[in-house]
């Protein structure tokens, strides 16, 4: 097989990267090897365009047991338990095949969690869609919601929270970010580090087919007309097998039957063998003839790159193989020994009597390309309409408009979504979806766990740096309004094509903002995922970092809810009033456009607010709390009433203050967002 320049380009590799490959191998690669490098060096697996930025995140803290680099991050919870959590995107698959794209997104993130030995206890989804008035968008919405529901419900993990936002900025390129949270006894943490020459490489789960070949590479390019033809890159989910794999895997870990585990997710068998061996400094030998196959005549290339779902790779001591087999057999799963570890440091792949790949395992990740991309201040940011000088002559009947605003897609209750998700199974959900943060009591623990997923693409579009800070601040406010002390975050960075300097500016500024906010709140970044190339033929999406945060409500404090608890209580507004409508959902709804300026985020003030909320909750001073989120104070108060005790009402008086000269009416008080 001759590797032509065209073939190299089709694999998303540039001539310099190809030269590096020849340097690593000391020869031309085989086609299988070219495929392996192609997926491993895609943005999805190698973070080649974002790594220099991601390195600036704070990732350590006394309560962080595992930072980035593993299947998921781990934060300390109490004497006995730790929390394993991570968020991942499935944007491109969901754009093409909404149901399977979203379903397999759930399946993939679940595997990242239980592979570490943790039982998944909650799912959250952060969703972005185009205008729901568009029929194609409605098809995507219903497919995504049903895909999440069918998968999450069947595996018995409650979907307890998330967010959903509509804007034409996401037309044709929806965002589907799924977060999974798991719990583990601290001495049971399992890592994906292969060790022990002679130990066996064991495959279990579904068989391998042609689905999902080059999914990781596909996720690292822009969506275009031709994307439709790449439909075969989307995988098909099987939640029943996943459920069996969850139970079997947790049993394997509980009985110490395996040394290391990794799921075959993005880049399939390639990624799991290369990464496990690479992390452990081991060599790994596999024979592809032993891989169970559900399609005929699969080539070595296809087997190595297939992203068929619900497949696991374990490292097992030979003496424990029988134990492993018996546990898998209980769940009607087969163990397939593909090969073994050795001391060569080589990843060696055999197929039909031939060596089809032989690569130094550690070099694949060590020598992966890293790029410092150019950035440039985006022109559009100088031309944003300013809410302080425009638009405020609009006169309307406030009451009428208020009801319409409440009924708008971004403000109305998302019950129609979350009631399709089983949010109660496992009987830990004490604060269900539709509140500040979801709160789970934890069986056999006095403390509760709060969790949330938040982002605001509009803010980041207006000002990526302030928007990055605000995303973390909003997550922290949601967690703290539940009475929980924020612990750590995971994130999904959803951006456009990083090769465009304006987009790279957005990415680097948002990362700077997120990092600063995390330092201020003491919530390190434990991992996450980067989804770039989120563009449709009209351009890039709004830059949308989504923050998944966990926090702890320490007993004997009781978690707070958003709804007004009982009559006769005082309502107190904490924090400075909003002084303009920039970045408000109200103006976005009113005009369909993004109006600046972005609210600014004073991190030390935010930190003080978080501390106040947590301490006031612990001191028993608060009956409820709610943050002023999308829609501003008016919507916040409405939600407090609607979520409150039966037939409760609220009497609100806002002292008239000096109104900035640029605001000809005091609408900012009601619809502007507090910062």
């Amino acid at each position, binding site marked *: 097989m001759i590797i032509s320049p065209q073939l190299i380009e089709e694999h998303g590799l540039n001539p310099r990267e190809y030269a590096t490959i020849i340097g690593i191998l000391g020869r031309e690669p085989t086609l299988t090897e070219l495929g392996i490098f192609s997926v491993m060096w895609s943005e999805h697996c190698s973070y080649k365009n974002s790594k220099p930025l991601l390195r600036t995140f704070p990732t350590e803290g006394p309560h962080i047991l595992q930072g980035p680099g593993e299947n998921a991050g781990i934060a300390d919870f109490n004497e006995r338990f730790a929390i394993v959590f991570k968020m991942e995107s499935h944007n491109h698959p969901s754009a093409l095949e909404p149901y399977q794209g979203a379903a397999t997104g759930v399946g993939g993130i679940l595997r990242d969690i239980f592979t570490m030995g943790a039982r998944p206890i909650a799912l959250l989804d952060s969703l972005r869609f185009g205008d729901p008035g568009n029929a194609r968008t409605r098809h995507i919405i219903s497919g995504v919601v*049903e895909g999440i*529901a*069918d998968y999450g*419900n*069947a*595996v*018995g993990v409650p979907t307890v929270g998330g967010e959903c936002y509509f804007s034409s900025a996401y037309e044709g390129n929806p965002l589907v970010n799924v977060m999974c949270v798991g719990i583990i006894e601290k001495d049971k943490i399992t890592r994906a580090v292969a060790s022990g020459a002679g130990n066996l490489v064991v495959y279990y789960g579904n068989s391998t087919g042609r689905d999902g070949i080059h999914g990781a590479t596909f996720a690292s390019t822009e969506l275009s007309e031709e994307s439709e033809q790449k439909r075969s890159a989307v995988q098909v989910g*099987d*939640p*029943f*097998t996943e*459920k*069996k794999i969850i139970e079997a895997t947790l049993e394997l870990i509980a009985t110490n039957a395996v040394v290391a585990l990794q799921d075959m997710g993005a880049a399939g068998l390639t990624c799991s063998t290369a990464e496990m061996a690479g992390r452990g400094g081991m060599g790994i030998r596999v024979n592809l003839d032993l891989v169970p196959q559900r399609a005929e005549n699969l080539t070595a290339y296809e087997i190595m790159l297939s992203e068929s779902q619900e497949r696991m790779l374990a490292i097992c001591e030979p003496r424990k193989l029988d134990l492993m087999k018996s546990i898998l057999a*209980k*769940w*009607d799963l087969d163990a397939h020994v593909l090969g073994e570890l050795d001391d060569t440091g080589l990843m060696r792949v055999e197929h039909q009597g031939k060596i089809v790949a032989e690569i130094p395992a550690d070099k694949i990740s060590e020598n992966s390309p890293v790029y410092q991309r150019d950035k440039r201040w985006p022109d559009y940011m100088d031309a944003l309409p300013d809410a302080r000088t425009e638009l405020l002559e609009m006169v309307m009947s406030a009451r009428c408009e208020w009801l319409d605003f409440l009924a708008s897609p971004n403000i109305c209750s998302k019950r129609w979504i*979350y*009631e*399709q*998700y*089983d*949010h*109660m*199974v*496992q*009987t830990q*959900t*004490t604060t269900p979806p539709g509140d500040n943060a979801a709160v789970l*009591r934890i*069986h056999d623990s006095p403390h509760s766990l709060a969790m949330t997923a938040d982002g605001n693409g509009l803010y980041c579009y207006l000002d990526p740096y302030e928007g990055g800070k605000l995303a973390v601040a909003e997550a922290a406010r949601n967690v703290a309004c539940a009475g929980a002390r924020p612990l750590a975050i995971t994130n999904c960075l959803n951006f456009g094509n990083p090769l465009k300097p304006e987009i790279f500016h957005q990415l680097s500024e948002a990362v700077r903002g997120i990092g600063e906010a995390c330092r201020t709140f003491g919530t390190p970044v434990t991992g996450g995922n980067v989804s770039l190339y989120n563009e449709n033929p009209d351009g890039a999406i709004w830059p949308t970092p989504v923050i998944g945060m966990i926090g702890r409500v320490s007993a004997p404090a009781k978690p707070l809810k958003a709804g007004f608890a009982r009559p006769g209580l005082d309502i107190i507004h904490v924090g400075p009033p909003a002084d303009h409508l920039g970045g408000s959902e109200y103006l976005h709804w009113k005009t369909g456009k993004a109006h600046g300026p972005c609210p600014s985020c004073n991190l030390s003030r935010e930190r003080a607010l978080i501390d106040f909320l947590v301490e006031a909750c612990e001191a028993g001073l608060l009956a409820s709390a709610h943050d002023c989120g999308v829609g501003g104070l008016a919507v916040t108060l409405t939600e407090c009433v609607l979520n409150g005790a039966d037939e409760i009402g609220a009497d609100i008086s806002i002292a008239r203050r000096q109104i900035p000269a640029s605001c000809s009416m005091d609408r900012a008080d009601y619809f502007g967002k507090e910062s």
Partner: protein
Amino acid sequence: MSTAVVVFPGSNCEKDTLRAVEAVSGRPATLVWHKDRLPSGTRLAVLPGGFSYGDYLRAGAIAQFSPVMKSVIELAKAGGLVLGICNGFQILLEARLLPGAMIRNRNLHFICRWINLRIERPGTPFTNFNPRILRIPIAHAMGNYFIDGDGLKQLEARGQVIFRYCSQSGDVGDAHNPNGSAGSIAGICNEAGNVLGMMPHPERAIDEALGSVDGRCIWESVLKCGG
């Protein structure tokens, strides 16, 4: 040991159910793998909620052939108590221990939310308590109970309708029927009155922190009679 909670591959409420049984009775209960038999001395078998065999083919259609079902049917014939919750109810229908069938919810979506349940026949082993309306959640995609007209008449005449969906004040009607079930039926028993299937999840309503303690009534009743 007298209460057994059966685990099929794909069950996902077995631990919640076990926890509820143990919390209410204060005694340990047993999880029984579907390839095994019920332990001798079992007086109450609970088939829990979930997606046995992924609900592939049809909810409950494959689980009815699991080895454990032989001893569940024996227990039912011998007068022991059998309680099927959600997917357990669907399995009991497929196994013909209860009449009728389940079809997809009227809105074709999975529904997870709190509903009110009216007790249609007090005094059974499952309803030996005073409250007449219970607040308990549902979580299913196939809970739309179907039976033909004659079958429904017969069910009503023989007092086999145990629970109906209702309003907060106990009104039964289309507006309070979450899934389109015939006669707003949420739970039925067999003629002998010792096998009950219900779609709502009483194991999710045993604690104020979860939003209701009304499920306890059902557990207390059934554990007193069979546990």
